[in-house]
């Protein structure tokens, strides 16, 4: 197992592997997302209270889930990058950040568009909404800090430390709806072992989450390739890569 991990950690190996895998993940995610949208927007029954308005859930929940998942990936990569000084780990963090920021932004915007008709407001300083906003600021802070130094290694290390410090925010977001009295919906999809959401509504949601995960896999790999190229542009393997027609 370890030799596989070690091989995967070598930039040229990862670069070439990603070159082959990205198209598969990208097309698979497109198909699955389209299937999820068909299920969520057309097949799923309207909510007894919110009617068809609840269908925003099919991009709101996957975006929110991915905004936390991407940050978890960054936190693990930051730890690996700092402890074992693995350059590829920092490339993974730098690649995941813009995607995570986009997901956090989407979670906030789609949530806000959902909140207006249902709560009567686009924004409220609710524990869940506020902690998600802080997550977005953390992402932006990471991106700025990562590029703030002449030497990319310094930028990588400084932003990795920020990522680790900021990871305390993840459990806060997750448990915010239980710790505080929030306007935001409480746990609904995974409640203990069961779920409080009707199967007809739940299935498309799980399909959309799977689609978003595949989407993230595809395009974080593509961004890692770019980050690796940027960091390794003076190495022989990049030179060989370029000389090939």
């Amino acid at each position, binding site marked *: 197992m370890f030799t596989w991990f070690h091989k995967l950690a070598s930039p040229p190996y990862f670069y070439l592997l990603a070159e082959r895998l990205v198209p598969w993940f*990208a097309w698979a995610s497109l198909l699955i997302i389209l299937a999820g949208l068909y299920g969520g*927007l*057309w097949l799923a029954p*309207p909510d007894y209270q*919110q*009617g*068809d*308005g609840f*269908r*925003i859930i099919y*991009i*709101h929940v996957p*975006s929110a889930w991915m905004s936390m998942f991407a940050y978890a990936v960054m936190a693990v990569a930051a730890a690996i990058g700092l402890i074992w000084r693995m350059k590829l780990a920092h490339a993974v963090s730098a690649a995941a950040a*813009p*995607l995570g920021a*986009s997901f956090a*932004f*989407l979670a906030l*915007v*789609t949530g806000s*568009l*959902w909140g*207006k*008709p249902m709560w009567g407001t686009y924004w409220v300083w609710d524990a869940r909404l506020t902690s998600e906003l802080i997550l977005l600021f953390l992402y932006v802070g990471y991106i700025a800090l990562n590029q703030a130094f002449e030497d990319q290694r310094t930028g990588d290390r400084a932003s990795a430390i920020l990522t680790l410090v900021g990871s305390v925010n993840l459990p806060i977001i997750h448990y915010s709806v239980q710790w505080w009295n929030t306007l935001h919906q409480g746990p609904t999809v995974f409640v203990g072992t069961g779920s409080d959401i009707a199967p007809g509504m739940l299935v498309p949601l799980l399909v959309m989450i799977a689609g978003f995960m595949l*989407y993230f896999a*595809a*395009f974080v790999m*593509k*961004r890692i*390739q*770019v980050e690796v*190229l*940027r960091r390794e*542009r*003076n190495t022989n393997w*990049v*030179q060989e*890569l*370029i000389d090939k027609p």
Partner: protein
Amino acid sequence: MKSWHEFISMGGYAAFVWPAYGIALVVLAVNALLPGRRQRQLLRELRQRAPRPGQTP
């Protein structure tokens, strides 16, 4: 079965559902197209570079 009109109106919530999906489409499309373009751009820059200088230009 639901009529096309009902689908578009989203039970009266069209003004919130469709913009949410529209913004999501834009954000996901940008994140899908940008990295590929940047990769090609970077490869082009690296190819135009003088062959194997000691330091980065």
